[in-house]
């Protein structure tokens, strides 16, 4: 059993304060390569990644992404390419590709953590504004940014007041009773 993997899962936390230290191209590629191994519904692979390192583009993105607290040196935008979904005659209401986004996101964040980098997901942004800023192809919908960088040491306390939960609070075994 690989205790490393489990530890990596347990110790990853969303990081919202990052330094301006650059992230090596090789590290970004390691993260993208990990995402390639994430599961994908029907093996369709509708997910596409857009990597943004240019400082001015990142600054503009933050202006339409109120949920992006980090000033991360690398942003990886996870997009769904709906052209692929249409090729397979699936309706736009099909949620499989959104589940793919989640799998890809977690895979990239765990990969980043495994190589000593900090990460944070962001969905609180204007999709329409991001399409314009990145000049995305018409069939791409921007779904989630993964911010990648180095964790800043801040004196500030972490999120307070959240109830501690364990897996038991989240799990039900077997059939539900009637009441």
């Amino acid at each position, binding site marked *: 059993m690989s205790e490393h993997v489990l530890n990596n899962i347990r110790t990853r936390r969303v990081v919202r304060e990052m330094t301006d230290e650059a992230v090596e191209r090789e590290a970004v590629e390691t993260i993208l390569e990990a995402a390639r191994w994430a599961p994908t519904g029907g093996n369709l692979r509708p997910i596409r990644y857009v990597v943004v390192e240019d400082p001015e583009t990142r600054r503009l993105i933050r*202006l*339409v*992404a*109120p*949920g992006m*607290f980090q000033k991360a040196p690398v942003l990886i935008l996870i997009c769904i390419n709906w052209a692929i979904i249409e090729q397979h005659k699936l309706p736009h209401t099909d949620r499989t590709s959104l589940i793919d986004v989640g799998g890809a996101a977690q895979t990239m964040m765990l990969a980043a953590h495994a190589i000593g980098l900090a990460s944070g997901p962001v969905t*609180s*942004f*204007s999709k*329409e*504004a991001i399409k314009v800023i990145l000049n995305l192809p018409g069939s791409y919908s921007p779904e989630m940014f993964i911010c990648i960088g180095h964790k800043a040491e801040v004196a*500030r*306390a*972490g*999120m*307070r*007041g*959240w109830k501690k939960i364990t897996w038991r609070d989240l799990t039900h075994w077997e059939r539900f009773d009637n009441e």
Partner: protein
Amino acid sequence: MSENWVLTETEAVELLALLISSARIQMDEPAHYGPLRLLTATERLSAMMLERSSDKSKAFLQDSIERIPEMHMAMSDVETYKDGLDHLCREVAGCLLRHSGAESASP
């Protein structure tokens, strides 16, 4: 009354972008995220204004920039969050009075 400008046109447009995007994403998010988005915009506006602001606002702007990220951390602790916002309201009211001149006119 001669007053100094504290925002460039570009900075003002940047703030518009943030406010408009905040309005849109709020449609898909829990209601209690509303204050968070307004505070994020407050924080960015304060940061933009700080450099060119006068002594009437400087201390308040610095205080608000410093205080806001800490307040986000306490978001789930509603009473602490409210206290933080009340503090900010008192401070901004003081800043308002300094700008209107009403403070020096009062006995």
